[in-house]
């Protein structure tokens, strides 16, 4: 029987329960959001004893399904005050699938803040022990310590110093197959883990067997159709593996949607220096790997290993959003410096979107100059890393820095930094930023695909027509995909190749012996969105917060000279389903 592990940090007790029958069809985001909505009082303080931190592998985790290596973390977010789901690659999702663990729920809070703990999960049970060795250490040192003490092959979920210091920009990191880091990036979940005084969790899959399949022949057949679609589609089969997500830099620059200099222009002069094409050439010239996976079983492999000029590892999982934020929004025209910032952020355990978007506002505030990558590194290491008073202000994220320094141009929705696509020139993504239950988040309903990339049809990015419907359909589909453990990038082939999505439903049915249809999966997406929305309403985050910051309505952006002009009433129709 599938298990649920509850670790109560108030009295350090562990309960291993049978998963309720009602959770049978839930995994990933559907399960983290169901648990948070059912068990966390919406009005609780996110860093208090009533919040819960939930980890859930996806429904297909642990199977041989292509790109099924993602798992979800959920809680009430201290950054946004909303419900939060954040997912990441790494090795843990797969291991939890094999261990038949549907969820790990961390509840309560120790009365004293003197001690830290580690949690170790294996086939034999769960151990909670005081932790001293890694306290105060950052993520790479934690991985080393865990490997030395418990073995190289363990799954690890950890926080760096930023999470220990309860910073709102902190994330939760997890070990990838190569022993580097992947992150549950957004929403300050590292602070939630820190508030529970949990420094790290290890997962040990020794003694487990392959995940049982009700119909393994049907599973294999469906997986073949699925992986063929991933390989056949030009985006997932060619573009992403070659250039990674940074290929978007030149595209967004070209259409005037690349937010530059804290969202004051849609184009960046040195775009070619920070582009995916330039990154690819650099990686190849220095003996790095342009094509790399964040988890086992990834067919697409959008990740990469980026070396410095001496051919030594600098960073991996070097994403468009990070490169955009430092490169264009903060005007740092040097990819090596940005890679170094990326590595330091991974180590401290801070969100690589929130942090550089915050720096854009800090630059506008005059804390440092636009383009000063060296000073960014110093502030990361010496102020945020050491939790000085300035470091804590910066570590409070984009909105807090804006407030503290009286900046009016603060790109956030529900307190979370707006990512790499300007909503004035890509209006569909603006609808997603405004309406998603998560605070500004491009992945929640990636309208860029249809507005700009001509995937899943075409909707004019500069017109308001059709954007609410587009964002709604994408948000519903995304909520469903986020529940399977499949990586969201399967959406590119899924939007264009008819057999792709039905193949994922066939895999679910072959795994569990169910008779789900596409309609059921869409229904699951709708249910997830609605229960997340209800949580937010009960938390006091109402429709008046489903909007973009005012400056988007006041300031036209070059080159198309466009403002955000979507009617609030039209936006509110998003929830009509």
């Amino acid at each position: 029987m599938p298990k649920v592990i509850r670790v109560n940090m108030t009295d350090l007790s562990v309960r291993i329960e049978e998963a309720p029958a009602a959770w049978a069809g839930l995994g990933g985001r559907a399960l983290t959001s169901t648990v948070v909505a059912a068990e966390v009082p919406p009005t609780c303080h996110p860093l208090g004893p009533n919040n819960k931190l939930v980890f859930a592998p996806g429904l297909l985790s642990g199977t041989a399904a292509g790109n099924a290596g993602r798992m979800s973390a959920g809680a009430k977010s201290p950054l946004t005050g909303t419900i939060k789901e954040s997912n990441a690659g790494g090795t843990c999702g797969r291991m939890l699938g094999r261990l038949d663990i549907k969820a790990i729920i961390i509840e309560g809070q120790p009365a004293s803040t003197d001690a830290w703990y580690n949690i170790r999960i294996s086939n034999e049970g769960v151990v909670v022990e005081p932790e001293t060795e890694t306290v105060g250490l950052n993520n790479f040192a934690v991985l080393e310590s865990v490997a030395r003490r418990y073995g190289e092959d363990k799954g690890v979920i950890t926080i760096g110093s930023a999470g220990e210091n309860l910073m709102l920009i902190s994330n939760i990191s997890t070990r990838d197959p190569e022993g580097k880091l992947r992150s549950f990036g957004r929403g300050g979940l590292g602070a939630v883990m820190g508030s529970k005084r949990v420094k790290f969790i290890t997962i040990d899959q020794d003694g487990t067997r392959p995940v049982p399949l009700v119909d393994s022949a049907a599973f294999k057949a469906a997986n073949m159709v699925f992986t063929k679609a991933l390989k056949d589609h030009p985006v997932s089969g060619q573009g992403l593996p070659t250039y990674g997500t940074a290929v978007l830099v030149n595209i967004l620059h070209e259409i005037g949607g690349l937010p530059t200099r804290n969202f004051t222009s849609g184009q960046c002069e040195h775009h070619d220096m920070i582009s995916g094409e330039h990154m690819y050439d650099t990686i190849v010239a220095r003996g790095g790997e342009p094509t790399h996976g964040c988890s086992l079983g990834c067919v697409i492999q959008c990740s990469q290993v980026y070396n410095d000029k001496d051919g030594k590892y600098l960073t991996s999982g070097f994403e468009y959003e990070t490169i955009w934020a430092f490169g264009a929004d903060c005007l740092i025209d040097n990819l090596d410096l940005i890679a170094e910032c990326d590595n330091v952020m991974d180590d401290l355990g801070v969100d690589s979107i929130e942090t550089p978007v915050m720096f854009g506002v800090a630059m506008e505030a005059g804390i440092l100059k636009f383009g000063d990558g060296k000073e960014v590194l110093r502030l990361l290491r010496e102020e945020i890393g050491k939790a000085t008073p300035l470091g804590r202000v910066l570590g409070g994220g984009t909105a807090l820095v804006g407030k503290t320094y009286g900046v009016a141009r603060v790109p956030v929705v529900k307190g979370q930094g707006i990512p790499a696509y300007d909503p004035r020139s890509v209006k569909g993504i603006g609808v997603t930023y405004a309406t998603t239950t998560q605070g500004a988040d491009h992945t929640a309903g990636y309208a860029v695909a249809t507005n700009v990339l001509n995937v899943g049809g075409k909707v004019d990015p500069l017109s308001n027509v059709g954007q609410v419907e587009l964002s709604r359909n994408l948000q519903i589909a995304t909520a469903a995909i986020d529940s399977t453990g499949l990586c969201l990038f399967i959406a590119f082939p899924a939007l264009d190749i008819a057999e792709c999505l039905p193949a994922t439903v066939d895999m679910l049915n072959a795994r569990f012996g169910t008779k789900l249809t596409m309609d059921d999966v869409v229904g699951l997406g709708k249910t997830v969105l609605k229960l997340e929305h209800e949580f937010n309403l009960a938390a006091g985050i109402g429709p008046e917060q489903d909007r973009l910051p005012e400056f988007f309505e006041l300031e036209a952006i070059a080159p198309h000279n466009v403002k955000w002009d979507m009617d609030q009433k039209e936006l509110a129709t998003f929830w009509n389903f």
Partner: protein
Amino acid sequence: MVMRITVKLFATFRENRFKEARREYPPGTTVADVAAELEIEAGLIGMIFIHGRAAELDRVLEEGDVLALFPLLGGG
């Protein structure tokens, strides 16, 4: 009479070609004509932008146009 067009190429389209070039074409030239001249298979073109706005293959170019051609790409 010739038209001067700035052509920008991206990703794989740059291989054995160029990043950006000012080129001359006779009036009436379409996007498809430019692609053919550059030996870019029309079926591989994913995005066409003229002055940063989406355009189709049959669009007739005008003097001073900035044309950008991308294969089908994505990210997020």
